């Protein structure tokens, strides 16, 4: 049987025995899949840096459709995470965070072309010099939105009236932004600057935000939405925050 070939992003790998790895891939055609990469470890290993998290690769997968575990055949490197992910500390650590985020938001075996294209576009922007932190907020916003978890920014969640310029008040119980008539914020307030940033995120491709800066309050807001959905914290996020804090103090 010929292999299934697909573009993919490496999300993570686990050691398997002395010489192999199990690779979790986000493929364009089949969504998230697992595959055994024989000979991926040891002194003469086959795949070199192609299996580093967030490397973009073209893979050949052996196994029947919908298999629990494929076998990885050829794995050709399209974009190396090692090269541009190792640019600076922030980028290196943020890459792990992107990978864990994509992993957490991708159910196994369900193709999601939009999420795949989003991830690749974000990585491309980082490669072209965008801040990995701005792109982290971009990726979070869109993953949340693609899963129907991002509260609408333009209308009051309670009365449906259109909300204009200015900031936004978030109400936790209603899981959305409310207008001045519908009550007070019980969660975070986002400034007008934050709303403008988010408007831009949802209107423009990631490359347009290459030189943008992100208001600080967006990060905890997104973390709240993510934690509520996943019902857990992401490990890489904690490591990212700890490492950046201790590296600059």
């Amino acid at each position: 049987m010929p292999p299934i070939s697909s573009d993919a992003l490496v999300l993570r790998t686990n050691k398997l025995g002395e010489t192999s790895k199990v690779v979790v891939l986000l493929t364009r055609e089949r969504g998230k899949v697992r595959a055994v990469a024989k000979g991926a470890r040891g002194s003469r290993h086959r795949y070199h840096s192609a299996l580093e998290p967030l490397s973009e690769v073209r893979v050949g997968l052996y196994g029947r459709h919908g298999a629990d575990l494929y076998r990885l055949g050829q794995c050709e490197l399209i974009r190396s995470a090692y090269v541009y992910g190792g640019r600076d500390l922030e980028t290196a650590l943020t890459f792990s965070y992107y990978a864990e985020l994509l992993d957490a938001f991708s159910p196994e075996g369900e193709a999601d072309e939009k999420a795949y294209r989003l991830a690749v576009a974000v990585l491309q922007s980082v490669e072209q010099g965008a801040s990995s932190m701005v792109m982290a907020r971009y990726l979070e916003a869109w993953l949340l939105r693609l899963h129907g978890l991002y509260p609408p920014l333009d209308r009051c969640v309670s009365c449906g009236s259109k909300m204009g310029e200015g900031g936004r008040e978030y109400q936790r119980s209603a899981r959305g932004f409310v207008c001045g008539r519908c009550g007070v914020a019980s969660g975070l307030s986002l400034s007008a600057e934050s709303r403008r940033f988010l408007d831009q995120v949802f209107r423009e491709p990631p490359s347009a935000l290459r030189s943008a800066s992100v208001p600080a309050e967006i990060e905890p807001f997104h973390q709240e939405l993510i934690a509520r959905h996943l019902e857990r914290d992401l490990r890489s996020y904690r490591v990212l925050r700890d490492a950046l804090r201790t590296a600059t103090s």
Partner: protein
Amino acid sequence: MEYPPPIARLIDELRRLPGIGPKSGQRIAFHLLRGTKEESHRLAALIAALLDEVRTCGRCNAFTDREICRICEDPVRTDRIICVIEEPHSLVTIEKAGGFHGRYHVLHGTIAPLQGVGPEQLRIQGLLDRVREGIVEEAILAMSPTVEGEATAIYLAKILKPLGVRVTRIATGIPVGSEIEWADEVTMARALEGRREY
């Protein structure tokens, strides 16, 4: 067929060791059964003593049977260069290669965000203390050329440089004895970057 409990229990334990499956577990168990009592007592005693006798060096964190390891106490080696490594077994590899006459510092891991391992879980504080003593002039970062190894190296460079120490990273390139056409693009690019006068 079921094994008598003492054999079955041993196979079960052996299987938990790295690289040993049920087949190898059986082979080892039967090998021991064919041997003498002295042999298996000797092996058992060595295993039992391992965690009692081996500890990590109070200075460099390498495995040792003393308070301070032989390398740290070796008067012929220089204190001016520290080679920072991920795991104790890297030390053996570097020592075998010869040519390095400084001291070591073992981190016992790398920053691995996906496993939840951050700088706090690594033995970094001891390294900073050693550098602050003022004798170290150069820290060689000998982490693997992986994204995690790279993140760890960048992190260490960031916190070591302000202490006034020279920070270097081991070179990456084409493995000796291999052929250039089998090198991947990333390795090749690094090898070109790291070229030297000839």
